[in-house]
């Protein structure tokens, strides 16, 4: 688990650097959590199954497939758009088509830098698909990333990281949920001895 935490750290560190470069502001990053969590606990991490979140979702293909979510509160997304793209911060909950595609692009940049540092570190090829966006209940969104795990049990491995942009409090979270089959590949790539009990 420690080594996975380190991997998450490096990935998130790079993504935080990318974000702070585009925003031209320092970005702090909370130490990632790597845990096998029951499904319910995973949605609790983003405020409960009913909490409305904005998610940029990527299916990760390549050597160690999995699901990657970049999750923001709608307020944080509005702030991010405001600071980044200089878009007026609307008060309404809706996002325009322009804002939507800007968010997809931000998600793309962050996920790209997150994954490419994981790929460098593990020498595995990890390729994100095009981003898909949704703003909806966290349970409905994250549930989608748990399907592969559903076949095996009621908990999933989650590498979760939080960004904090202090002054403006833009917070976002990465959830990497590697497919069950990907664990061994990641561990082997990291040179961790395998001991299956």
């Amino acid at each position, binding site marked *: 688990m420690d080594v996975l935490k380190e991997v998450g750290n490096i990935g998130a560190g790079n993504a935080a650097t990318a974000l702070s470069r585009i925003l031209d502001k320092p970005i702090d990053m909370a130490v990632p959590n790597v845990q096998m969590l029951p499904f319910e606990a995973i*949605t609790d991490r983003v405020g409960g199954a009913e909490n409305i979140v904005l998610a940029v979702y990527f299916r990760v293909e390549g050597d160690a497939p999995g699901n990657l979510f970049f999750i923001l509160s709608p307020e944080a997304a509005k702030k991010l758009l405001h600071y980044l793209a200089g878009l007026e911060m609307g008060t309404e909950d809706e996002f325009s088509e322009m804002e939507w595609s800007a968010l997809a692009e931000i998600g793309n940049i962050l996920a790209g830098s997150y994954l490419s540092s994981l790929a460098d570190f593990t020498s595995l090829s990890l390729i994100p*698909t095009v981003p898909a966006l949704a703003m*909806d*209940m966290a349970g409905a969104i994250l549930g989608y990333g*748990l399907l592969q795990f559903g*076949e*095996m049990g*009621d908990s999933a491995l989650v590498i979760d990281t939080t960004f904090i942009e202090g002054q403006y409090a833009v917070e976002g979270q990465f959830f990497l949920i590697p497919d069950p089959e990907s664990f061994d590949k990641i561990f082997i790539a990291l040179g961790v001895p395998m001991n299956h009990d």
Partner: protein
Amino acid sequence: MIDEQRIVKVGMAELNIITGHGLIRTTGLGSCVGLTLFDPHTKVAGLAHVMLPTSDIAREGVLNVAKYADTAVPTLLDQLISNGAVKSRIVAKMAGGSQMFTFAGTGDSMRIGPRNVESCKIKLSELGIPLIAEDTGGNYGRTIELNCETGILFIRSVQKGVKEL
């Protein structure tokens, strides 16, 4: 005297029943299906938060019957019956089974929502339980709760507001 509303919560890949009065609820259904069974005479209601269409794909050690449509429906039915419900009176309602993300070329798991819905329907008809209402499909999440006195199913979604079935 005001009675505090009793709420039974059902989590992802869980099932439960409620009798007498109160609500049974599950939150944040995406591609999962919330299947409810209800006997209006004895006021016995049950809810399953179904995640996957068939237990054939299960690779887990101990099978969680609540998780798969083909095992959750008969298990829930048995639980209703053992709590006093009569099979010939039981009716089903369901909601969920959406496709949260739509983009091309990513295999069968993209269609998991519609497949969950189909699988629940097949199982219900095998068991002879009429499906009297449904709110399925789309690309949005739902929270549902069944009132076990009236049998009314409330459905709440971010995009479509509140609906009653």
